[in-house]
Structures are given as C-alpha cells and as structure tokens.
C-alpha cells in the first residue's frame, strides 16, 4: 500500500472528505521491530510492537531507560538513522486531511518530508539541545513555518506571534535567544514549534522530565488545554508512570523492547495484569494517602543484544515459573477484564493475582 505524494494536501484543512472511518485509529503501528546494528550483533531495541493512537487521544508510553520507548516512537516516524534499522512491521497513518492512508515505512523521502511535522510533530526531551542556540525564537518558529507551509514572510511572522500567544509567552520574547529563556519557557517554545503546522499527532518525548514539578504541572495543563482546543492526539513518552496515570487516556507499558501491558489509565492502576506493571505501581512513593510499604524492582533489564528466551521480565519477576521461559511474548486480552482492549503479555497472572488463581492458570497453560 504505497501512498502517492498527492495524497497529502498540505494547506487544506478541508475535513469533508474523510476516508478514515470514525473509530479507526489515526496512527496504527503493527508488529514494528527495530534493531541497532552493532559489531557485537543486533540489539533488538523494539520487538514486534503493535500500538494504536486514535484521534484526540493521549496514549502514554512508559518504560525504563533503554526499554525502547523512544526508539519505537522515532522508528514509527522513520526518524532513526544507521545503525538503527527497521527490521519489520508497518505503520499506517491516516489524518483527516488525507484521502488515503499512508504506509509511513514505504513513503519516498519527499513524501515523508511533506508529511513530517505537517501531520506528525515531535516535542523533544531536552529543549536546550533541541533549540538552535544562535537563532532567536522568531527565526526558529518562522523556519518551521516556511519549511512546511506556504505563505509570505509577514504571514509567517504573524503566525509565529500567535503561536507564542497560544503557549502563553509574551510576543516580546520573539527576539529572545534560547539561553535567555527559562527551562519552562524553552519547553513552551518547543511546543509552539510542534503546533506550528497544526499536526494531528504530537509525539512528546519526556517533555517535562527536566523541569520542576510546579513548572511541569503548568506545562502539562497547557498541553491539555491546547489538545482540547486543537484536537490533536498525543503519544506521551515518559518513565514516570505516576504522571501518566493522571494524564493519559490509555497507557502502554514497555519493557526490554516489548509491550507488557496496554490498557486505560484506570485499568492499569486498579487492575494491573502484568507483574511488571504491578511492581512499577509499587515503585513510587505517593504523596497522598497512607504511607505504603515500597519495594522497587530489584535487578536490571536483560541485555537486548542476546535476549533470554521467553518473558524478558522473568529474572526480576517474583511470580515467574519455569513455563515463562517458553512463552512467546504477545499481547492478549486480559481474560478477566470486560474491556477487550485491555491487553497483557503475561498469560499466567490474573489481575488481582490471588495465589490459587495464579496456580490454576499456570496449570491450564501448561496443558
């Protein structure tokens, strides 16, 4: 399914011709695998990951460093370069401005260019490094606008100003250079830049990790406000599950390059199914409510150079059995969940992990 260049209608915001049926995902990642070619062999950073993002939805992608969450997002946009290699899968994107869905992994470089930022924009983690230190805010914003939209200089300038209004930065700051802005302001400029072309998908890679909690909350509030007005979907990458529980509609938990669990925020919090999710939920101290006994997760993730067979979490899992070395990690519906979209990669454990249930489950699978 190869899309034509003409499929993308960059300047039109005509929404009458909707090829995408309501309920179809905006971005559909299927079986995506990404490897890093190293002299020591392939590092399997992302293995057969499938994830959907619907219009206007916030999907949180959570995982430890090195779990492949950024590689997954960047791979889906083909932003990775050698030694990273997409070894399989498909990424289908269908925005409302497009007549036909596009298979991102098969687009030509020109087609890709016309789609990037226009349809899918990214807010990078380190605003200090992502902004050009020798250009002022105005030049960086108009640069994006000129690259992806038509229009005169004056229009671009006008647009840059209104983008700053949008994120709550005074227009006088157009002349400021990145080093003259606070961390929060820089991150707001990054967000303004991502929104410059009214994309339908915004990938946010740890956008608030370097910020203080007070500023973090301000920025997240602003992101939500903008999302509600402009209607874009967000793929929010973070290592902070507690943040996602409050922010995201759905949460995808990633470990060692694979998805362990996908579900709504309330399912993940109240009925976590995968042992990793459960342990992760008990890994952060909570500020409110009774003081809980906290344990963390002893151990470290496996090497992705030569991953062990079966479940990658097994070495750190307290509920694992010998059978876990033989399972094929695939997401399946949580049997006890009424929601068909609550998926888990652990076939053995019931949501509330009563000992008897666990045992019965294992017996069942073994047979």
């Amino acid at each position, binding site marked *: 399914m190869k899309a034509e260049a003409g499929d993308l209608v960059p300047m039109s915001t005509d929404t009458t011709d909707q090829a995408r049926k309501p309920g179809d995902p905006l971005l559909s990642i299927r079986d995506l695998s990404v490897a890093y070619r190293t002299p020591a062999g392939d590092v399997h950073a992302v293995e057969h990951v499938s994830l959907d993002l619907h219009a206007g939805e916030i999907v949180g992608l959570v995982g430890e460093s090195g779990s492949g969450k950024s590689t997954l997002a960047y791979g889906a946009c083909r932003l990775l370069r050698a030694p990273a290699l997409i070894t399989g899968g498909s990424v289908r994107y269908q925005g409302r401005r497009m007549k036909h869905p596009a298979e991102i992994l098969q687009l030509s470089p020109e087609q890709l260019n016309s789609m990037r930022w226009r349809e899918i924009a990214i807010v990078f983690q380190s605003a200090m490094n992502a902004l050009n230190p020798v250009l002022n805010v105005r030049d960086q914003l108009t640069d994006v606008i000129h690259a992806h939209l038509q229009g005169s200089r004056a229009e671009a300038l006008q647009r840059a100003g209104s983008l700053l209004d949008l994120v709550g930065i005074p227009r006088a700051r157009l002349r400021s250079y990145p080093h003259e802005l606070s961390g929060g302001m820089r991150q707001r400029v990054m967000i303004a830049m991502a929104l410059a072309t009214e994309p339908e998908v915004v990938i946010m890679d740890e956008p608030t990790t370097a910020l203080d909690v007070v500023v973090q909350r301000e920025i997240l509030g602003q992101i939500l406000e903008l999302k509600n007005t402009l209607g874009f979907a967000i793929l929010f990458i973070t290592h902070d599950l507690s943040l996602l529980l409050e922010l995201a*509609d759905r949460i995808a938990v990633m470990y060692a390059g694979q998805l362990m669990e996908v579900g709504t925020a309330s399912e993940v919090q109240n009925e976590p199914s995968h042992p990793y999710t459960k342990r992760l939920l008990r890994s952060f101290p909570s*500020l409110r409510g009774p003081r809980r006994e906290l344990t*963390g997760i002893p151990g470290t993730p496996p090497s992705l150079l030569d991953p062990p067979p079966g479940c990658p979490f097994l070495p750190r899992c307290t509920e694992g059995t010998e059978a876990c070395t033989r399972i094929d990690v695939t997401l399946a519906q949580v049997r006890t969940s009424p929601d068909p979209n609550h998926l888990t990669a652990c076939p053995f454990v019931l949501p509330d992990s009563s000992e008897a249930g666990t045992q019965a489950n294992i017996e069942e699978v073994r047979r």
Partner: protein
Amino acid sequence: MSSDAVELQPAAGDLVSAAAARGSLVLEVVGLSKDFKLGRGEVLHAVRDASLGLYRGAVVALVGESGSGKSTVARMLAGQERPTAGTISLNGKPVHLANRQAFRRYKSEVQMVFQDPFASLNPAHTVRYHIERPLHLHRSSLSKEQVHKEAVSLMEQVRLTPAETFLAKYPHELSGGQRQRVSFARGLAAEPSVLLADEPVSMLDVSIRLEMLNLLDDLRKRFELAMLYITHDIASARFFADEVLVMYAGQIVERGPAEQVTQQPAHPYTQLLVSSAPDPDNLGGMLRDGGKRERPGESAGLPATNACQFSSRCPFAIDRCRAEAPPLLQISSSRAAACWRLDVAAPSLVSGEEGGGDLTS
C-alpha cells in the same frame, strides 16, 4: 478574625527538629548564607540565613526546585564552598577549614554522594581504586591487607556481590544503579558520621529508585549515619525523611516532621509544591481541570531583596510581604514556616489550639 489572631513568634532555639528523636546532634548549621558576586555590583543571595541540624541515625530532607540553593547548602556542608556568613559545628565544635589537615579531618566525618553516577566516577579507574582511595586517605593506619578486606566488606554492604568481580570492573561496565552503589560505598569508606546525599536517585530509573532509597535507609540504620537528603521530589522525602526542610529562593521557608509538612503544608510555596506533584490517585485529574489552574507568577519580576521572595507568586501576598521578609515563625514545637499570612494560608494550623500538630498516625 484579623490582626488579633494568634501572633506567631520567630522560631528560636526551642524549635525541636523532628530528626532529634533519633539520636544526638552531629552537624549543626546556624545562620548559613552564601552570596555570589555576579559582577556590576550585583549579588546573588544563593542561601540566606539557613539553620539546620543533622542527627545520628536520622534523615533530614532538603526539598526545593532547581536554583533554590539546596545544592549550595550541601556544598558548604561538604566544605567545598566557603559560607559568606554563618557557622558550621561538628559534634559541638565550630568547623574551621583553615588548612589541609583540618579539611581532611572534616571530610573523614562528612562525606557526600553526588547526583550523577555517570559523572562522579572516574572512567579511567576501576571500582577498586574508587573504594580504596578514601581508605588510604582517611584510614591510613590500615595495612594493605586490611584495605583489601575493607573494600570487599564495603562492596557487600552496598550489595555488589561477588565483591571481587565488581572491584575489578570499570565504571562503564556498570549500570546506573550499580554505579550509584559504588558511590555509596565510596562515601562510607571513610567511616563518616554524616552523609550528604545530593539527589542520589534522581538520575536512576523509577524501578530502581526505591531499591536505592531502601539501601540508603538500611545503611543509615547500620552505620547510624546522620543524613541530609537533597531532592526535588517531595513525595520521596515523605517516604524517606524524618524532618523536611523546604527551600525557596535560598531561604528555608518551612520545616517540620515529614508527614506533617507533606500532609498539611503551611507555607504557600509548600502548598504549591505538594499540589503540583503527580497524584496517581487522581485519575484523569489533569484532564478534568485541563489547564484551568491559574499560572502563578509567570512574568512577575523578581521581588526586592528584603521582600518575601515568594510574594510575587503568592496568592496571599499583601503589602507587608513585599516590604519585609518574614523569618521562620514557630507553629508548633517542631514546625515553623516563613510566612506573614499563615492565618490565611493555613488557618487550621495556627488557630491557637495545639492545631494540626498531630498528624503522625
């Protein structure tokens, strides 16, 4: 219910630290200040008149945003920065770091663990070097054999086993968590009585942070360490510390027992900090009030030097706040906050009854 509400008194010597219950006073800091000259006659008051005490076997948390001066306090306590004013006393004796011997003696009692385990270990040296060097420096009476033995035992204390294998490794061969364990072992090598931990877990993954905090807690108990835990994460301070000190713009604006400060914050800044922390029990909370919170003090200029530094962002600020900086005012036997408006900001705490004091349950 206005001016003749309870008049709070500045916290003087009778304020009892929540950490004091654990053990004896080891390191005491009184009126510590640090100014940095910025040139053109401008001065940055990085730390203003900070007083605190570290007690054997207790954890005191210093919480604040980046730039609040918390690391500067730690650097002064570690002897790496010279205070502009104030005194530091170790075991009751004022500290004068006049010469190298005095500095080394002090360092053998007060050790520091840094935030970034990737930057704080020398990539050119093995773990053995990092552990044995402080042993040579601070415990020179040990024989070569004893140094070896001690290094192995330290590695076992921080649970890096088999010790010999890890001692032979280079930092790049270790994970972030393992490196931070090496930093802990190095910090303990001199057998210090005080450990200053500057954001010891914030560079680590969430899944291993707790494990590391539990390890620190374990070491605190086993070695009866007086610990200063510096963090921006007030939730972890609640979990880990006995007393919490909240810092804002160089000043300690609130102090008290960890549970009380986090559950019923008195100072408007602490309240903002607590309400800003992610609340996993508030599912979709942000979605519901989607950015409708007012943005406190984004563009307001810096307050005058002698004003309350939080006054430009504070919803309760009055003229007095902009004219006169409040000292720490005593709320209960163990709590104090630097705010003129506590009767409005935290009425239940200062209502005159032995209010709000007993939250420890």
